[in-house]
């Protein structure tokens, strides 16, 4: 049985493709529900949908190239370039992924609250290129326009890289015949789950689906954050022990006792089959460190606080205990981009009104009492 079906490879492929499929299918379902159902502007919908698919496929392609390069170096030059700093790379990837997913998740929830046609307008506005050429390369613009591309790209790249390195490097102990079937079956199983999620989402109550899928995304993201920190701590321990620990499996000596919160000699996501899926979804570690446990809890704490603040601000217009401070002002980019200059303060508005009044008094009766048309109008009506 082992000769045609390597269980370890199956689980790795299943886990990686499951995570990637969840992200991609949630994005697609969100797009379909949010924009696609409004039939009057399929162009925007298609553009964004293409971005998602392009991101996913390009991520897979790049990871195969990079992974192939690593394997080539490993066998050609006999150097395990990946091995020594593996924990460090994994940790960095995890942190990048968790940041992206965290930001995207809330954005998706909020955007979905908009009325449908506003979502379309938003999408259109995001996709539209700014008039000046210089503005086209502003990071802010690029990240917004291509956000639907970036997230799936990074996700599939990361997942795929892990899978390729594992199968190519570690899987070499098993006979070559045991490869193809678990790889294909694992891919099908993972993508299948993603497809189910998409189909389910497309028909179920939209907001509920979005809430559920966002919850899943955030569980994965919390797990990723914890895992990232765990990888960094593992890297530090491996460096101190000179790399010995990696070979000792799950037993004593494979982990830092002074940093351990719990350790069981089984259920190791890196080695034991099936537990890696548990690790993907919830960040489970058989050997938890202070760092990984605290990171997990801190992540949720920050998320709950952030959501709390957003709810409060959206209901009352300002942050708790600070009248006049809004969440958006906490974003440094806000100040950097000088958005303020587009908003008139009350004082300035009073001055403006005065000026206009004077204008009217002084002269013409065709005075236009409306204030200038730029976005200041939005602020005025919100007062």
């Amino acid at each position, binding site marked *: 049985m082992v000769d045609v079906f390597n269980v370890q490879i199956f689980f790795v492929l299943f886990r990686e493709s499951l995570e990637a499929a969840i992200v991609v299918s949630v994005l697609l379902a969100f797009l379909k529900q949010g924009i696609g159902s409004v039939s009057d502007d399929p162009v925007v919908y298609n553009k964004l949908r293409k971005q998602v698919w392009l991101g996913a496929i390009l991520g897979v392609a790049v990871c195969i190239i990079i992974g192939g390069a690593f394997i080539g170096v490993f066998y050609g030059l006999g150097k395990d370039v990946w091995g020594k700093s593996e924990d460090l790379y994994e940790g960095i990837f995890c942190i990048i992924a968790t940041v992206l997913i965290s930001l995207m998740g809330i954005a998706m929830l909020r955007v979905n609250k908009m009325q449908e046609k506003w979502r379309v307008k*938003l999408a259109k506005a995001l996709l539209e290129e700014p008039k000046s050429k210089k503005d086209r390369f502003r990071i802010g613009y690029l990240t917004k326009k291509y956000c639907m591309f970036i997230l799936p790209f990074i996700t599939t790249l990361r997942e795929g890289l892990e899978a390729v390195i594992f199968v190519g490097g570690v899987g070499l102990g098993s006979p070559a015949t045991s490869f193809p079937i678990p790889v294909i079956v694992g891919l099908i199983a993972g993508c299948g789950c993603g497809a189910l999620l998409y189909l389910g989402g497309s028909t179920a109550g939209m907001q509920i689906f979005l809430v559920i899928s966002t919850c899943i995304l955030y569980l994965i993201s919390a797990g990723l954050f914890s895992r990232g920190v765990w990888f960094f701590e593992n890297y530090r321990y491996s460096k101190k022990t000179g790399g010995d620990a990696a070979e000792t499996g799950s037993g004593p000596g494979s982990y830092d006792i002074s940093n351990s919160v719990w350790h069981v000699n089984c259920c190791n996501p890196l080695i034991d089959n099936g537990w890696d899926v548990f690790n993907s979804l919830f960040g489970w570690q058989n050997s938890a460190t202070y760092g990984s446990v605290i990171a997990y809890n801190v992540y949720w704490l920050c998320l709950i606080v952030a959501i709390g603040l957003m*709810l409060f601000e959206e209901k009352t217009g300002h942050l708790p205990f600070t009248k006049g401070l809004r969440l958006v002002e906490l974003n440094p980019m806000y100040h950097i981009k000088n958005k303020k200059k587009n908003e008139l303060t009350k004082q300035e508005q009073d001055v403006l009104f005065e000026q206009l009044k004077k204008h009217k008094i002084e002269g013409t009766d065709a005075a236009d009492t409306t204030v200038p*048309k730029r976005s200041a109008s939005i602020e005025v009506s919100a007062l």
Partner: protein
Amino acid sequence: MLSLFKVVTALFAVNVLALVSAATPQTHEYWYEATWVTVNPDGVKERQAVGWNNTWPLPNIEVNKGDRLIVHLSNGLGNWNTSLHFHGLFQNGTNQMDGPEMITQCPIVPGGSMTYNFTIPDQSGTYWYHSHTLGQFGDGFRGALIVHEDDFPYEYDEEVVLTVAEWYHDDFFTLKKSFLNLYNPTGAEPIPQNLLWNDTRNGTWKVEPGKTYLLRIVNVGAFVSQYLWMEDHEFTVIEVDGVYVEKNVTDMIYITSAQRYSALVTMKNDTSRNYAFMQAFDLDMLDVQPKDLVVNGTNWIVYDEEAELPGAYDVPEWEFLDDFYLQPVTKEEILDEPDYRITVDVIMDNLGNGVNYAFFNNITYASPKVPLLATVMSSGNLSTNAAIYGSNTHAFVLEKDEVVEIVLNNQDTGKHPFHLHGHTFQVIERGPDYGEEPTPVSWNETEEYDAPEFPMRRDVLYVRAQSFFRIRFKANNPGVWFFHCHIEWHLAQGLALALIEDPAGIQEKETLGENWLANCEAAGVKTIGNAAGNSENFLDLTGENVQQKPLPAGFTARGIVALVFSCIAGLLGVVAIAFYGMADISNIEERIARDLDVDLHEEEEAEGYSHEQYSAEVSK
């Protein structure tokens, strides 16, 4: 006729005199102070080493069989205890002179001194002496001890002593810190920097053609075993560990820490060239091999000082003498089936502090608070109760004259040289190397085995990887005898046990000397009581030294709390998301547009909405 009578009388007188002088034992008395000396034996790096009377290396001590040896050892080190063990000597009736700290004596503290005074009545051959304070002999406190005897069984022209060892550039304190450390979870031993040959490198041995030399080889190192071989010359092994053996010719000797081999080497008659005398690390014993490690040591047999010294002489494979097959000259029939069989498994594992320790079965040796010998002397009738010697000293009580067999199963993938104090033992069986097997192979009692009729005897024997050995001896030497791995790193990890041989006999024959007791007083160590220092109730061991706690097997309280907390955090987070997701927010479009820096209003303009209509739409 008269002249013949005179001649005969003269001859008779001479012979009588000769006999008398041979029979008169001499006393050799030495005064030595252990001091720190700056040395650089490998010519690469200077470091501090433990010398005697400010000199290093330590002198070879030469005595005759039957002589008395007295060494007054004082401790001038200032920051380290010391002790002295004469390796291989039986110390029959003088167990308190044997040397190991907290086994047969108290440590000699800085400023203190102890007098070792004993005779060597029934042994001869190549021995050595070294400190039995942990790690000290690796730092230099070691030297050769030759016990000559008139009835030497073989002929030779000249005698030469050769010591081999490995050498570290760092001292034991420094190395021990990083060795017994939670960041060294596999217990990887520190790698030595070089090999030494008579405490130098690239040594030369000036020889004369045609002579037969008796080469007494001692491995005074604390860790690695070495291969020794000569270019175009052979070793004729005639003694191991003080036991004379029938001539065994070999090209290569494998010598572990603490072992001795004496070999006859017959020189060529031709002085035209010189030859290499090689030594090499047993690389299996090194956890890693640093790229810059010089694995061979090249020394020379010099016939002609003017001729050139050849380069290294390499050999294609390690074919060396298997000491199991040596035949002692004095044949001793194999001891009967043992009265007492001690079976121990050698295991390396980590305890609760993350450090890797070495175990015999499940016990890693921890020092008692009172020297075991003192516990024997002060425990009266309880001396035969093994419990009083502590739960972590792994003490076994042996009865007088019983045949004891130690079966040692090595569950580790490394070789280990084991040494028994106070005895030479018969080597009954030694299993082959099972290092490549997935699991260690223990001795199987039911398997058929043809034991040798006259087994080989010695006092240091190595066991092969994942294999076993069996040794037998007769408990005819009352005393507390240490049995331990002679790799100092493993001794530091606790690979030792104690044999309390004939405690009643010890009480009878030994009297703890004044000097011995004074040394304990200076060290602040009690001389009565059990392993916990309790002299009221010998069976009460509260307060004894024990090994570290084991690693927690699964979830501890801390772990459960952390896991529950994390689950709750996750749940709350999910609830928060759900709540936010279902909540109604007014003016959401404006907020989002503002946050994303997008002007939705412009869109309105394009489609012809007026401002009022826009506002109306938005507030819906």
